[in-house]
């Protein structure tokens, strides 16, 4: 019987869960496989985070700060679980870390293993990984973190930048039929950043639908009205190199006509997938996954943050594509559910 909670994953959801457990006075261990805390936004050096559009560092730093030096909370980086046995109330977890292996007991586990970006090389028509000036949103985040936006091939400032939405999402041919939910908003933000860094740049977004849902609708209005970002309806079929530029081919479905327009830089809105860590942890803990591979909650309404396996709780983008602020909210929620679970067992 253990009173501690193991949190797997040190991204926004895991960090929020850890800080919340510390606030509740519950003992916890946070395990992160990367050398640094902060999850995917940190790993890929995101530029700005939705919805506040503050630099990602400003958003992540307080999340990390909240878990440092907290009583009863251990934080392990460069570490991952390799085996789990036992059951709710008394899980035995083997961890592999920089200092070697160790075993610890946990009464409950919170899985916050996050997501991975779709690997755009899998959608070969866009030439990602072949043409250096075809980048994905992850690359673009890093490029926008620099003071000046330069295109990879020759370091020049791109004058015409295009975004292709729904790369690796909503596409049976690449195996992902769901919407990744964040890319429309992220691309609007990136498009605005391109314009802010170089107001004379022309920025086009090729879209099927714009899904900046809810209050984020504003992002798309702003991109269009304040910054003159242009939206072209239709999916790009193919990108080919021509005379040092990228020739972008497609059908404009509003005009019902073909286009073949040169661009300096093309950004692929590569969507979200359950990451390798999520897959591994699901196997270790015997967690159910929904048809797209994300972790499945026990019940979407009565137990949205609980796995079907007793004593295991879920939070963040390993459940479904989502923004970091939603992941943070879920982390705190999962912490409360885990604490309540331990208390109910102790009372028994």
């Amino acid at each position, binding site marked *: 019987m253990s009173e501690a909670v193991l949190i797997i994953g040190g991204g926004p959801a895991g960090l929020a869960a850890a800080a919340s457990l510390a606030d509740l006075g519950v003992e916890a261990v946070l395990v992160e496989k990367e050398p640094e805390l902060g999850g995917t936004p940190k790993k890929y050096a995101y530029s700005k985070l939705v919805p506040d559009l503050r630099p990602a560092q400003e958003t992540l730093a307080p999340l990390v700060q909240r878990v440092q030096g907290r009583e009863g909370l251990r934080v392990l980086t460069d570490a991952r679980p390799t085996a789990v046995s036992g059951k709710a109330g008394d899980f035995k977890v083997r961890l592999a870390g920089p200092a070697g292996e160790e075993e610890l007991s946990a009464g409950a586990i919170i899985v916050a293993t996050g997501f991975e970006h779709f690997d755009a090389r899998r959608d070969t*028509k866009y030439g990602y990984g072949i043409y250096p000036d075809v980048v994905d949103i992850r690359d673009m985040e890093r490029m926008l973190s620099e003071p000046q936006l330069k295109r990879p091939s020759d370091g020049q400032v791109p004058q015409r930048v295009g975004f292709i939405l*729904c790369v690796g999402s*909503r*596409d*049976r*041919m690449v195996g992902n039929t769901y919407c990744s939910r964040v890319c429309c908003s992220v691309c609007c933000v990136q498009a605005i950043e391109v314009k802010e860094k170089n107001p004379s740049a022309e920025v086009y977004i090729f879209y*099927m*639908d714009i899904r900046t849902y809810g209050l984020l609708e504003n992002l798309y209005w702003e991109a269009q009205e304040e910054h003159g970002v242009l939206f072209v*309806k*239709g*999916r*790009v*079929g*193919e990108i080919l190199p021509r005379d040092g530029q990228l020739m972008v*081919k*497609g*059908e*404009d*479905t509003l005009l*019902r006509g*073909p286009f073949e327009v040169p661009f300096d830089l093309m950004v692929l809105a590569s969507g979200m997938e359950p990451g390798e860590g999520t897959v591994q942890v699901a196997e270790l803990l015997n967690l159910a996954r929904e048809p797209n591979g994300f972790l499945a909650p026990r019940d979407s309404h009565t137990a949205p943050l609980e796995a079907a396996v007793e004593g295991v709780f879920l939070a963040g983008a390993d459940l479904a594509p989502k923004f970091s602020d939603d992941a943070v909210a879920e982390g705190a929620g999962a912490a409360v559910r885990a604490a309540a679970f331990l208390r109910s067992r102790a009372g028994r």
Partner: protein
Amino acid sequence: MPDDKDREKHEIFEELRADPRYHDFVRGCLNCGVCTGWCPSHRFFDYAPRIVIQNCLAGEDRVYGMMGEYIWACAQCFSCAMVCPFNNNPGGVVAILREIAVRRGMMSAKRVLKPYSRVLLKVMTFGNQVSPDMIQPDFFPDWGPKIPWAQEDLELKRQAIPVPTLRTVESAWKVAESTMNELYTINKEAGIFDLVEVNDPGLAEVIEDDVQDKVAAYLAEEAKKE
């Protein structure tokens, strides 16, 4: 007359949807246009595989509207099928519709197939696709202005060719009788003769006569052997 047209419209739509391939070819459509972005015909014609799928989803009037010229603008390269996020196959739909047009002997099919009637004649009667005497301006108007000249004194000109030409202008080479027999059987059993009958009755008759003659000659030869 309008009744006939309505019936034809309805029948074509039903034939299309009854085709066992159809439901694999049309699953759903987001109007994303990626198929058309690849389509080589779209660069030249107001033709879009996206519209092919949309028309299928819209019903019989729109499908019927494609039977005249639209389905013949497709190059049958199937790029559309390769990239469609829904895994639709617009080119496959066009293939089914072309088959329907040919089966029903529609005007558009007859027009498109006209040059092929010469090819068909050769295949059925000599077992070759092309022969020196078949390139006639009426059937192959796009083959260049020198054709009428080339057709004059054709046999004489063939003799000038320094390699063996079988001294024939009707066929490129001789095909064995057993092969001809096989070809005939395949075409007959596969229903090709029926399709030719529908689209070009004159051609069907010429082929049939030729085959009859050849069969008769063959039987006579066999009888002589015995």
